[in-house]
């Protein structure tokens, strides 16, 4: 179906259903209950899930297939974001030109960086990309302040040019939209004590992610993808057979840079602001973590990893002492204090600690990432069918 094998099509279908029904799936707890803290079904986080999913899918095309570990992918995200904000400022608050240009600019930028960096492989390649990304960050933060807004970042303003849009009415804000439908438009559906939020921006991003996912499957299954895998398994042998591998790696690098640009453009479309710290090396590191956590080289893994990290960043970091007191109020006083003392270091400002511990657990016990965890669980349920688990779609990279 759609040029996909049966197994891939099923995976694709699962992804489509999960993303379209995300507002229900992510809000399992009724409003007002103590567990509502863990609901993730609000527009900002849902958008982040799919956008960082796109980013990780793109990164995986490079890292998962060719094995080239780019440590500077955040630079393309940042460049895409800046390009999109400039389109908002100059042309129109319609997201179409913004997203198109962010993909194109990120593609060109990655072509230049890839051309230089891909002269080396292994750790030298990683260091080169890292150096370029840090350079972009430093430039955006200070020297290029007129272009990037420096520390305060770049945002659309009421007084911008916007060639294609009419003037704003008094009191109206410049809001990103798709042919008149604003990204922030939201419909809330109440069912009993549950509240489900449907956001237009989320569905735009979700459709983009589904497309990105589809293209990624096609690349994984194409002769081009096979060539990339060959580069990963033994590049020296490839060149001894007389084949120049550089065009292939460069193409993979540019495709993956364009994915990052798309993610950057979408981030800006959902929340019109671009800042330099989006390009900082920790942001690049986060992309690597997402991919490894979910399962490098697998189709669905990077998306899971992205969701996992964003969930912790946004949900666990918001639990504070007062919340804990609410949870444990029913315990006797002494035990309540002890429980709070035990849990407190792991939530709120300690969310990094929790994430780090979970990352360690995953790497030690599930070297193939969350996907491997899923496979293990699936294997328990259907032992007898374990023989066909050697499917390419879900085999971890390393």
């Amino acid at each position, binding site marked *: *179906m759609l*040029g996909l094998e049966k197994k891939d099509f099923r995976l694709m279908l699962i992804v489509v259903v999960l993303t379209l029904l995300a507002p229900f799936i992510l809000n399992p707890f009724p409003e007002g209950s103590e567990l509502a803290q863990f609901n993730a079904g609000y527009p900002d986080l849902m958008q982040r899930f799919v956008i960082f999913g796109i980013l990780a899918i793109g990164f995986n095309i490079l890292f998962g297939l060719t094995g080239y570990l780019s440590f500077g992918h955040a630079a393309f995200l940042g460049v895409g974001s800046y390009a999109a904000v400039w389109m908002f400022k100059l042309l129109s608050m319609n997201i179409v030109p913004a997203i198109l240009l962010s993909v194109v600019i990120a593609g060109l930028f990655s072509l230049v960086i890839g051309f230089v960096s891909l002269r080396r492989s292994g750790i030298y390649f990683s260091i080169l990309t890292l150096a370029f990304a840090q350079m972009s960050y430093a430039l955006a*933060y200070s020297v290029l302040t007129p272009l990037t807004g420096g520390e305060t970042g770049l945002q659309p303003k009421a007084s911008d040019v916007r060639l294609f849009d009419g003037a704003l009415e008094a009191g109206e804000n410049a809001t990103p939209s798709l042919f008149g439908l604003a990204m922030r438009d939201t419909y809330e559906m109440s069912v009993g004590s549950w509240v489900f939020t449907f956001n237009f921006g989320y569905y735009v991003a979700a459709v983009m992610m589904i497309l990105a996912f589809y293209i990624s499957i096609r690349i994984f299954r194409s002769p081009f993808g096979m060539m990339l895998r060959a580069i990963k398994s033994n590049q020296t042998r490839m060149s001894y057979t007389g084949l120049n591998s550089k065009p292939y790696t460069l193409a993979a690098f540019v495709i993956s840079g364009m994915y990052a640009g798309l993610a950057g453009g979408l981030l800006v479309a959902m929340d019109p602001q671009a*800042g330099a*710290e989006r390009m900082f090396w920790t942001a690049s590191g986060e992309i690597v973590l997402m991919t490894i956590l979910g399962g490098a080289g697998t189709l669905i893994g990077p998306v899971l990893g992205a969701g996992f990290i964003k969930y912790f*960043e*946004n949900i666990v970091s*918001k639990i504070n002492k*007062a919340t804990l007191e609410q949870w444990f109020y029913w315990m006797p006083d002494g035990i309540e204090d002890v429980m709070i003392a035990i849990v407190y270091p792991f939530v709120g400002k300690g969310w990094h600690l929790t994430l780090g511990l979970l990352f360690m657990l995953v790497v030690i016990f599930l070297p193939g990432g969350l996907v491997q965890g899923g496979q293990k669980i699936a294997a328990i349920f259907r032992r007898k069918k374990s023989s066909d688990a050697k499917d390419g779609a879900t085999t971890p990279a390393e």
Partner: protein
Amino acid sequence: MSKSNFSRRGVLKTGAIAGAGLALPQYLRADAHAGFTNAPGDSEVVLGFNVPQTGPYADEGLDELRAYELAVEHLNGGGDGGMMSTFSSKALDGTGILGREVKYVTGDTQTKSDAARASARSMIEKDGAIMITGGSSSGVAVAVQALCQEAGVIFMAGLTHSNDTTGKDKRANGFRHFFNSYMSGAALAPVLAANYGTDRKAYHLTADYNWGYTTEEAVRSSTEALGWETVNAVKTPLTQTDFSSYIAPVLNSGADVLVLNHYGGNMVNSLTNAVQFGLREAQANGKNFEIIVPLYSRLMAKGAGANVKGIFGSTNWHWSLQDEGSKAFVQSFGTKYGFPPSQAAHTTYVQTLLYADAVTRAGSFNPCAVVEALEDFEFDGLGNGKTLYRGADHQCFKDVLVVKGKENPENEFDLLEIVEVTPVEQVTYDPDHPQFQGGELGTCNPGA
């Protein structure tokens, strides 16, 4: 490799799914409730405290959080009421805001605009926060202020000193109580002239980002107006930790004053380097060499230790102030946490009270009503003397403290002494002042 097998059924099926996917958002795009974003219910109201809990300004952020918790306690009628008793407006009565109990949610800005906006959006979209406040850097303040303007909630800025927050990036829904670079320059210049004379040659080291630029500009223009000459201004990378290579050329540059436009860890390191190079003992042009730090905070003074002794700078508020408001605040903060509050804690506490008071006076949580109540609002008793929230740019105008590193500190909190309280007239500027041009306040946005 790829085999195409489009069957009629397959195409219909996927077409239907894709169509449903595309149609769904339009179908569900119903207009939200009228009024304004996150209108609170009858029993409680949620405020969002968005502060850096990790990263370079975590110290300030955690102190802000303490102040917020104290403010919420006081608003709900707990504790000793703090500055509520000294506040010139008596609208607040300790029964929450407009009879609703004050609840709060917290978030971690990580001192990154992206993270700060994500956290603020989750407070608005998920927790129903009606007001967002906090932040410990101008980049974050500007980013979150713009977000609040778009979303239609009020933003009460925390510690942000750059001119831009109420200059070129000002927004109708955002308010700043903290002072700014211009005020620092205007307050410092006369004190510097009185202590160091009017024929000095200054050398600037400036942190290479937005706040550094506006501070350098402010100090330069104020000191040059008094007859000083600026020999050189060098930008230093924000991530720099060793400033030796920047300090070494200063001595031979012909300058006799070094201005460090640095904040936080940058200032601690550059000042320490400068002292190690012997600049404090040096002579230039027949005068003693001097060092100036335009923006001081107690937490920075603590980091730099004995090096701050005798060095001039400016600050928004200091716990050793003896007016009734400051005494009441230091008293209740000290009782609860065991040490005196920082200026970051003070400004955030005051912002929370000011918001609550504005809502009460307006009789509504509607952001536009709050904006109207805060604009051109004059008050007293919150630790800075008579203060005006100017309507033209939503900046507070109040006295500015010029401080100096104390020669003989008595304890670890007693590091700064107040040299002069520069009266508000001297730091007031026109809303169209060149250092604040290029922005537009716009009109208040009540959201949905």
